[in-house]
């Protein structure tokens, strides 16, 4: 039972991080109809910017997280302007290739600046908490709390503000959005910025529990693409549910079957879902 609860905390924390990264990806896909393969690069960059802010600027963890999130958000918006916007009328494969190019570029740039070796980010609050015999690190609790706050805030933004509604409107009917006078270019850049913000925040949250390296974005890329395919490309609830499905499958599969199989289980689940429901778990209107 203790092991179970222990793993439960791990799964929820991991799922929270997956959800933040996957939400940005699914929003961008919904609005731009482009699978942004550079998304993992934004996540990786978020971790490095957090690292740089902590060690270089010597600021605290929370300001470093915020700085990294804002930095990556601006970069993501810039990326939309200079890479994806000019390719808006090009064949679909062009922005995909461009996105992969951006991913490689970001990896190379990070490696050039910070080197190929692993970096470690110290946890802001060291130590553990014991809850009824279950031992949880403070960082996992921080991850869980922060991801809940961010997801709730994002949901409020999408559902309760007019600017948020423009993102949903554009992903549901692009031409309809243009006809009511929504500036779809601005919404596109904004959506990219939000996706960068979420990815960087997720990276800053999880970074103290793992090693930061230039290739960490590729691993995350695979997982979040699996998640949004699982949940339905472009679907917000799909991204959240998919994130937790994957994190639970990985964590519990790893704990009860074999750690070596943790990654395999996630993708086996993906294959299964695609066989039964090719459109993803949460089918969305066109």
């Amino acid at each position, binding site marked *: 039972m203790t092991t179970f609860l222990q793993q439960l905390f791990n799964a929820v924390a991991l799922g929270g991080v997956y959800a933040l990264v996957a939400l940005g990806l699914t929003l961008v896909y919904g609005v731009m109809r482009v699978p942004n393969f550079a998304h993992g690069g934004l996540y990786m960059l978020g971790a490095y910017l957090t690292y740089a802010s902590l060690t270089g600027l010597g600021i605290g963890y929370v300001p470093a997280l915020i700085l990294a999130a804002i930095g990556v958000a601006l970069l993501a918006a810039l990326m939309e302007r200079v890479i994806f916007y000019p390719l808006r009328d090009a064949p679909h494969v062009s922005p995909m290739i461009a996105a992969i190019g951006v991913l490689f570029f970001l990896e190379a740039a990070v490696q050039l600046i910070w080197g190929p070796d692993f970096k470690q980010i110290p946890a802001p609050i060291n130590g553990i908490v014991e809850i009824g015999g279950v031992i949880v690190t403070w960082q996992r609790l921080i991850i869980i709390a922060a991801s809940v706050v961010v997801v709730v805030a994002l949901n409020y933004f999408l559902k309760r503000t007019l600017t948020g509604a*423009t993102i949903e*409107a554009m992903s549901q*009917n692009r031409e*309809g*959005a*243009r*006809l*009511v*006078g*929504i500036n779809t270019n601005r919404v596109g850049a904004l959506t990219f910025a939000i996706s960068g913000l979420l990815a960087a925040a997720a990276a800053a949250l999880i970074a103290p529990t793992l090693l930061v390296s230039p290739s960490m974005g590729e691993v995350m890329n695979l997982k979040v693409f699996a998640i949004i395919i699982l949940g339905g490309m472009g679907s917000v609830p799909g991204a959240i549910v998919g994130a937790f499905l994957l994190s639970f499958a990985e964590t519990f599969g790893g704990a009860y079957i074999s750690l070596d199989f943790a990654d395999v289980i996630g993708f086996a689940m993906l294959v299964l879902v695609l066989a039964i429901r090719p459109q993803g778990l949460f089918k969305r209107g066109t």
Partner: protein
Amino acid sequence: MLEVRDLSVNYGHFTALHSISLNVNPGEIVVMLGANGAGKSTLFRTLSGLQRASGGSAKWKNTPLTGGTPEYNVAHGVAQCPEGRLLFPDLSVEKNLRLGAFVHRKDTAGTNRELERVYTLFPDLVQKRNAPAGSLSGGQQQMVAIARSLMARPELLLLDEPSLGLAPMVVEQVFAAIQRVNEAGVSVLLAEQNAYAALDIAHRGYVMESGVLTLQGTQQELMTDDRVRSAYLGV
């Protein structure tokens, strides 16, 4: 008034509109008759700023409608209710309507007033206000689409095929609603294949064939024109 002068639109080498000239006076309902593919939708898309003109001009009260963005045209009083409705299917009816007032986003009070007005115009929508727009019947969705374009408080409403795919009884309701909108002071340019219902409420009309205007006249003239009668009224 809407003044379209020698407007041409090309899609690559294909010319969809050949130097079209027409006008819509304030307060009028003008119908644009024509078969599928005649170029009606191209004309409407150009007037809304979705499609670039290759030549000529279109103006609403001295505001050029060609060369800008849809945003600009909506903000200057020209709103389109497009063919196929183009609603936001997963958003509630009310959110669809509020987004229709996007160009007036700083004027919340005005938007709330307009919302009440369109609910009075389409009372069926009141009880559906929280339902996803995509869950409504075809006729109700058409009401939402017209209401959404009205939320922009247009002076000129471009209505593209509002009766498409609707049951005859619903078509009647839609046209009655268009007439009420017009009586409230909105000029209407209406593209229709359902010539009889459209001519019934229109003041004037044009006939478009293969991107050219082949005929124009008042409601009476068109109703009694032999070519219109055989081609569009089926008598």
